[in-house]
């Protein structure tokens, strides 16, 4: 059981790291600010989300798990708003 749990964590956390990799690659390689922003949001949402889901089985107790989810939701909210604000700041109509 514990092996299965750890496997779940390993797979999802690794997948999350891959999304961070993709986000960084996009940030570095994409040609203009808006496409780079697009790449960044992938890392923000999916990368962090997968890592949080992967860590859930490792959390001891429901409250600790809930706190992880809260961190992710906060990051989602902040990230979404920040993305729109940065898009606005790039000078084109958002």
């Amino acid at each position, binding site marked *: 059981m514990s092996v299965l749990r750890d496997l779940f964590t390993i797979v999802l956390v690794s997948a999350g790291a891959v999304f961070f990799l993709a986000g960084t690659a996009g940030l*570095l390689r994409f040609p203009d600010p808006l496409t780079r922003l697009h790449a960044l949001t992938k890392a923000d949402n999916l*990368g962090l989300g997968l*890592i949080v889901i992967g860590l859930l089985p490792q959390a001891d107790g429901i409250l600790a798990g809930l706190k992880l989810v809260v961190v992710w939701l906060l990051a989602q909210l902040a990230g979404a708003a*920040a993305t729109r604000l940065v898009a606005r700041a790039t000078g084109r109509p958002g």
Partner: protein
Amino acid sequence: MAEFLIAMAGVVLAVVSVGLARVLWGPADADRLMAAQLLGTGSVAAVLLLAAAVGSPAIVDAAVILTLLAAFAIAAFVSSQFDSDATADLPRDQQQ
């Protein structure tokens, strides 16, 4: 397991810090800020991974603070950015 989680924290940080090259290159200020935002999210992920590795729930609080203040810092940047757009075409003595 702890070792794997610490290693993944290192991997995420390493990946994200490569993105910091955008802080060097720019070209726009928004690009620099995006790199910082990516580092912020990556740090949150790394903190969560470290918290799970050490088994200390208090470390998760650091992730909460980082998330809240990352949003705050970006709002501070953008709202001051609006300022320079909005007042750029006003005569100087009306800017203050």
